[in-house]
């Protein structure tokens, strides 16, 4: 049943990439529990504008949990308290009247803050550019049913491919590693027959590009907890295994 609740927000405000940031407190009264978390921020922003203050910058696009644009630290949790749920899909029924909510951007050296709650996540695109693809030029593909793929394999590849590139795994990781994100893409492609030709080159290049931008993974497992798509951490183990093999194979292939 919907109800109205009053909240106190502590929001990170930062005027620009090189500006000093600080927390500002806002009272958010009369918020319907049917509103989404971002709609709650829309309401706060609307009130700020009416009062002549610049609205809080935060990003979103699909508001359906699929594009990976949104992403806030809510009371210290990436994407907030509801498991397997991106910020935009979180609803105010997860909160109670009188709650204090701390709202911050993703915190990681490789995700510089652009303004308030918006960060720059381009380093993730660089990881994909390093090998997160199958090299097949347009028009060069054989008939799609030429290579059957066992349903189980396709399903597991899909579980990895479901990553939305939000960066919550990085934000949640004590080392700010992007290992879950990287492993998800590596395994999506490494599992499929179509991805075999570039398996070893891909693994080495993507893992090393990840490490050039982000911290190293030391298996804390916080990423899996934070991931809105519940990407299993097993993919990291498989990627580590592929990486060791890749180091050997790539040397042999080169030699």
């Amino acid at each position, binding site marked *: 049943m*919907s109800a109205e609740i009053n909240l106190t927000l502590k929001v990170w405000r930062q*005027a*620009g990439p090189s500006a000093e940031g600080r927390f500002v407190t806002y009272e958010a009264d009369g918020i*319907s529990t*049917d509103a*989404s978390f*971002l*709609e709650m921020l*829309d309401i706060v922003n*609307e009130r700020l504008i*009416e009062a*002549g203050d*610049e*609205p809080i*910058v935060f*990003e979103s*696009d*699909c*508001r*359906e*949990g*699929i*594009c*990976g*644009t949104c992403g806030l630290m809510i009371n210290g949790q990436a994407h907030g308290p509801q498991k397997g*749920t991106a910020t935009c*899909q979180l*609803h105010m029924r997860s909160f109670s009247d009188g709650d204090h909510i701390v709202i911050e951007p993703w915190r990681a050296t490789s995700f510089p803050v*652009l*303004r308030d709650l*918006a960060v*720059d*996540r*381009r380093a993730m*695109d660089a990881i*994909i*550019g*390093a090998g*997160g*693809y*199958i090299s*097949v030029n*347009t*028009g060069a*593909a*054989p*008939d*799609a*049913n030429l290579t059957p*793929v*066992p*349903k189980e394999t*396709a399903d597991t590849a*899909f579980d990895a*491919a479901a990553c939305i*590139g939000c960066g919550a795994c990085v934000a949640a990781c004590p080392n700010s590693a992007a290992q879950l994100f990287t492993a998800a893409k590596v395994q*999506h*492609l490494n599992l*499929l027959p*179509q991805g075999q030709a570039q398996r070893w080159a891909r693994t080495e290049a993507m893992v090393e590009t990840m490490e050039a931008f982000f911290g190293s993974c030391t298996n804390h497992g916080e990423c899996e907890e934070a991931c809105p798509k519940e990407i299993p951490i097993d993919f990291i183990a498989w990627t580590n295994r592929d990486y060791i093999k890749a180091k050997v194979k790539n040397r042999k292939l080169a030699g």
Partner: protein
Amino acid sequence: MLGSLDARIPAGSLDTKWTDHKFSMRLVNPNNKRRFDIIVVGSGLAGASAAASLGELGYRVKVLTYHDSPRRAHSIAAQGGINAAKNYQNDGDSVYRLFYDTIKGGDYRAREANVYRLAEVSVDIIDQATAQGVPFAREYGGLLDNRSFGGAQVSRTFYARGQTGQQLLLGAYSALMRQVAAGTVELHTRSEMLELVMHDGRAVGVVTRDLITGEIVSHSAHAVVLATGGYGNVYFLSTNAKMCNVTAAWRAHRKGALFANPCYTQIHPTCIPASDDFQSKLTLMSESLRNDGRIWVPLAHDDGRAPHEIPDADRDYFLERKYPAFGNLVPRDVASRNAKTVVDEGRGVGPLRNGVYLDFSGAMARDGEAVIRAKYGNLFDMYERITGEDPYTVPMRIYPATHYTMGGLWVDYELMSNVPGLFVMGEANFSDHGANRLGASALMQGLADGYFILPYTIGNYLSDYLGDPALGTSEPVFADAEQAVANEMSRWLSIGGTRSVDHYHRELGKLVWDYIGMARNKTGLEKALSEIPALREEYHRNVRVLGSADTLNQSLEKAGRVADLFELAELMARDALTREESCGGHFREEHQTTDGEAMRDDDNFTHVAAWEWNGEGTPQTRHREELEFENVELTQRSYK
């Protein structure tokens, strides 16, 4: 002035036109390709696939997108699937049948030649995507699975759980990032195109604003390709991603590109009904749900009982009742209008009485909950997260919402607009869906345009300019365009009004929904033509945009986009008023059969309406492209 519009459709029989045309088009040889600069605005399915393919061919490509990464375009949210005439199910599908279904589904308001080509290349898309690693659903034997979709009687839709758009976009994005890494494509994210730059009557570049720094930048090229998506957000509430807007297309329109059929908008029957005033967007529940869910409302008005307390005898499965052949799988416009009818009658369900039930209890009894969970699990979870109700035990509530826009910039057979050098692809053009798009056909069209059509046709245009360098950005036309953008920014910041951009966007949306929504009539459209300009005038006088132009300023970004939506809304009303017939998504209440079906006027309206900008304050001029049907006989659509 423009003469009558010529789509430059090649001669010859329908099934060989494209092949013959590809053969007769002039080619740019591989070494010369690197002497051409091409700007692609947009990196959704259409933009990413085109940019990757052009990069592979050796062109120098520049991709501009206002997103922070090309992986995020609106395309990512497509759920249900993508059509292709593979006939893997051996159920009688063929290129001709897909062509026929699309023409008929579009209510005979699309070009035969374009649609046939679309059906033809559809099969290549599936091959390409599979080779890229797109994890389409498979059967136990390891081959690709299909499902059926509204408006078709064969199973030709390929899907990747409920995330087909995501997987296809990630495939195109990975191909694009491969080219970015290879240096053939230069990627500019968070860059919003705000001006099209013209020289000698041709498109020669664009001006963008960097959304982080506010820097205004000129980009020049031999050709400009817009793949900037649709304009569904003119309704404020729609299933489109929040950032979708018409600005790129509209700014091109203001420079002379014709805007075609703006009144053809599609309402999707299966969305979650709005719950309150703060609602920021509507969420689609994939139409594939109509394969297993049954749509009903109580027979009685204001029936207060919970759904499970209402016995079958007291339910009205209105689509099954009225359309026994297609039942719950009638096309979108038919399903939507019927839902509106029963809600308007006072038989709606839910707290605001603004929905109809979509009930899975029968399918779960038949196939078991596990099967339903495997097919639709993520959609059911999404529904529960939004509404707080469990669709495994309580029927879903759905209601139509704006979803797709068939109208867009006019293009010829080669996807070039009437402005030489300006190409338009994907949802941003008007070309293939006529007055109504069939489910799972937008992904197909975006990727057909991007992978398999534009990379050929653009060469035919470029070959004339071999050896000519792109115009330098130091030319006055660029400086003028930059100045126009700078002036626009200062104008927004200096208004100093009292209400936010979102406030006006929401108000505009209400007018457009009420007057140019699911059903239109003369009185309403005339009202729209007086109320929209009045609200627009207030907007320009009273909007409040705070902050400055040299930082990330989301209100400032939105200010220009909403201004363009205002102008578009007025054109939609004018287009809808002029089109004195009902067809597809355009339902004029004055033009219906005695049993409430859309009634076309083929004698007077078998044409595309393409509008020419005449400057601010002067209504656009309407041009026509006559549609010739040589292969298909025009019939009254009937899904009974």
